[in-house]
């Protein structure tokens, strides 16, 4: 659906009354980067996911050497600037046990939940970003935010479990509006005071929440769970209001730009190359200003429909139809598409890494968990699915390593990531992928 730009930027609280002044954040850290410390607030550690479809080409992406200072591979070249800030996991396995191999889905479910999915397009539990958000997002305006660079709200791999996927913002403008439109508290405002409109909306929500007791009566088991989810959502809206009434105490060295123009958002690569950095930047700004601590970005569905104009096959169809070049030993066009995925990932990391924070960057105070649906797309293979984890988690994750194929389940990486995020959990995943062994050598 198309949204009117002017309508979006208008504060709905005041109805048609006032067009909101575009937020402008122009507050700098002092010369030593001490502004945050001055407010007494610690820089929070953020969590992000990055999803891209169709995996990579084994012969071209797995680094030849393991450990620190490994030899960068051809397909990881776009990520070279972040080599020292990320870890590469090769040879990881997805174990589906007795479940079907849902083409382009089993791998997504396994990476996001540590559990082999029993239904296609649904997760068998809450996804990793939500598990992390439960712990780290208290007090922020949004528990998590998801965005789709291909313009599809369904391209979100962030879920409350079952069919309850958290829809993605599908255009840069809608992402901007959610983050920096009505309700955004500009931390740089000198004369900040709580917005009385927010308090009025709180009274509205409390009447809605009061109906809970009656509504929850006479419900069957599944409908009770659905109504419970509804009222949990109401409560999150109340938390959001509470956050909007607090004086913002994150002072970041960033400027919130004017709202982006409406633009074409779809699967055509030239459009993705414009949209991805833009959405990445908005997400990074949201993290920097503590609007949220969990940002999920996707560039495609599993079985990516990305295409280069003029290529009648496109990415997904190429993976199945392009012959393996007998001399090269791989599918050349597919390999090129793989590199495009890595370029888009690099564009995301770049936006996180350009924002200075304390003695490092936003990326240093983050983790980014990048995953995909398959290892070798041509045959929907799952063994050796690539996992690329960037960011230092505020010093809790050692970086710069290539962890080479020990045949472990992908859930070990998920567990490691959650440990680095400070979650006090012993294990993660289910079935044959249940694990209690994080990569302790990476944890500080």
């Amino acid at each position: 659906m198309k949204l009117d730009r002017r309508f979006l930027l208008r504060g709905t609280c005041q109805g048609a009354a006032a067009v909101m002044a575009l937020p402008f954040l122009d507050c700098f850290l002092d010369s030593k980067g001490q502004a945050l410390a001055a407010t007494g607030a610690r820089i929070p550690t953020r969590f992000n996911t990055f999803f891209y479809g169709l995996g990579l080409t084994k012969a071209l992406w797995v680094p030849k050497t393991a450990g620190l200072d490994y030899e960068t591979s051809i397909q990881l070249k776009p990520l070279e600037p972040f080599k020292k800030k990320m870890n590469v996991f090769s040879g990881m396995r997805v174990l589906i046990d007795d479940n079907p191999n849902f083409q382009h889905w089993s791998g997504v479910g396994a990476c996001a939940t540590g559990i082999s999915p029993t239904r296609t397009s649904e997760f068998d539990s809450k996804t990793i970003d939500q598990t992390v958000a439960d712990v780290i997002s208290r007090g922020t305006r949004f528990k998590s935010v998801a965005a789709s660079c291909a313009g599809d709200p369904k391209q979100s791999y962030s879920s409350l479990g079952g069919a309850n996927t958290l829809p993605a913002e599908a255009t840069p403008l809608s992402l901007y509006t959610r983050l920096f439109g009505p309700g955004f508290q500009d931390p740089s405002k000198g004369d900040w005071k709580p917005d009385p409109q927010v308090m009025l909306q709180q009274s509205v929500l409390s009447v809605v929440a009061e109906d809970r007791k009656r509504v929850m009566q006479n419900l069957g088991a599944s409908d009770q769970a659905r109504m419970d989810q509804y009222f949990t959502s109401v409560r999150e809206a109340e938390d959001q209001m509470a956050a909007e009434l607090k004086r913002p105490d994150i002072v970041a060295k960033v400027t919130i730009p004017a709202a982006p123009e409406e633009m074409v958002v779809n699967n055509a690569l030239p459009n993705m190359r414009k949209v991805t950095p833009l959405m990445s930047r908005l997400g990074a700004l949201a993290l920097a200003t503590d609007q949220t601590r969990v940002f999920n970005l996707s560039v495609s569905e599993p079985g990516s429909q990305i295409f280069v104009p003029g290529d009648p096959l496109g990415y997904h169809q190429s993976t199945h139809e392009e012959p393996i070049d007998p001399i090269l030993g791989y599918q050349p066009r597919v390999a090129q598409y793989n590199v495009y995925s890595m370029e888009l990932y690099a564009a995301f990391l770049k936006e996180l890494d350009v924002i200075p924070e304390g003695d490092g960057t936003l990326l240093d105070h983050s983790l980014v968990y990048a995953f995909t649906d398959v290892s070798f797309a041509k045959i929907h293979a799952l063994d050796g699915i690539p996992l690329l984890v960037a960011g230092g988690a505020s010093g809790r994750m050692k970086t710069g390593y290539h962890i080479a194929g020990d045949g472990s389940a992908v859930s070990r990486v998920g567990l490691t990531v959650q440990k680095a995020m400070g979650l006090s959990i012993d294990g993660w995943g289910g079935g044959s992928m249940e694990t209690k062994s994080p990569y302790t050598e990476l944890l500080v």
Partner: protein
Amino acid sequence: MRKKFVFVISAFLGLAVFGQVPALAAGDSEVVGLRRLTEQEYRNSIADIFGKDIVVQGVFEPGKRVGGLIEASTAILSITPVGFDSYSKMADGIAVQVTSEKNRAHLVPCKPKSASQPDDACATQFFDHYGLMLFRRPLTGDELKSRVKLAENMTKASGDFYAGLHYGLATLLQSSEFLFRKESAVPAGAKDYTLDPYSRAARLSYLMWDTTPDAELLRAAEAGELNAPGGLEKQVDRLMASPRLDVGMRAFFSDMLELDTFDNVSKDSLLYPKWSVAMAASAREETLRTAIDLSLHDNGDMRDLMTTNKTYINRNLAAIYGVPFSFDGDWVAHDFAPQDGRSGVLTQVSMLSMFSHPGRSSPTKRGVALMEIFLCEPTPTPPNNVDFSVVNNTNGPLKTVRERLLAHATNSVCASCHTHSDPIGLSLEDFDTIGGYRTTENGQSIDVSATIQGKSFAGAQGLGRFMHDNPKYPACIARKLYSYAKGVDSEDVEPSAFKTAYKAFSESGYRMRSLLKNLAESADFFGAPAPAAPANGTKLASQ
């Protein structure tokens, strides 16, 4: 069975006579269904309650196709925090407009004693009226009281009576009781339940008109008429006689034909410069016009949807169909000639382009989609142990799509799925990814012969005939309409569930009106199994 039914009806009538509200008064009533409003249902409801001038602008949570229908997912999905945030903002936006200076004279049913003071009587009247319309049943005493109280407080705080109404109305618009259609039922016999009158009104109205029940239907519900055969028939006939039936059936066909797929279709603009967003909208409209014309306006045989040469085109579509467009106005009826190779909706731009790749047609996508949409035969998921590497070696001299697909079909592992869906798709290869006609691809002539279930035919017109004569197709329409109306997964429905309606459908020569009427009036239509009770001590997150 019939006796039981009559007994339940008289129980309702009894309650109505004593002036109680059966939907809420029945102590043993259970919620047997919660249907989240679709975007279109929400929009239509708001337009009918407050008028078409009220602007609804916001993002709706996406649905999910279950058993071929998005409507079935409305009985499964909840509202996530992201969705609620959006509903909450939309609620405020609507409430602001309704109580605005411009609209209050005709939308607020009473005048307050003073525009700056609380007026509980007027506020009560306002919430009572819109509460009934939005919740599709009268508000309970507590629901009403809490809104009147909120309005009073807000008016005191702001010195504006209408601000009080604004915030009170916003609570109704973001309530679960509006956002979900709650289907309540009372026991009907030992094991089964039957919907109460207000839930019946809502089910009928959303099926027939895709919107909230109108005043007359709510009145009939309150009077208990919907639980009496004569009263029910009267309302069904009224709903079906209205031109608004078009709106309801458009929603059904839109869902069944998966026309929402267009929301995410992009085409390669280098290879197919004719394609545009406007083209997608035109193609969707063409298919809906064809389906509505055949089913409702012409009262035609639904099987003809597979073969008809009649359609509607506009300037955009004319370019793809290769028809000179020299007419005034947007749309014009058009008859294809036999040599155009077209066959009903199967060869409309919508079906051909939705189930294709950005730069190329896809027999597999088309085959899988058409089998599911028209024959209710979803392609099975591959078994656990499929070794896809057996089809890996396609490096040989397999040049055409057909050759490559046949390689799948001759491999026993792949054949189970690919022989199921590919033939249909291959017979449509005369049409490119945006639905344009062609007889060659890359200089080679295209072979459009196909064999399905022992029947051989060639091309789209052969396929159209095959589908037209396939009894699974009309049975699939009945199955989908039943599932759509009841909000259930079509794959889980037993044929016996819609047997009566299907019989009437078939005896009428497959007239949609006959199917719809008999479905709505069949004994099972408002029945529901008893809901599974929550386990004791279920932990709830929102507590």
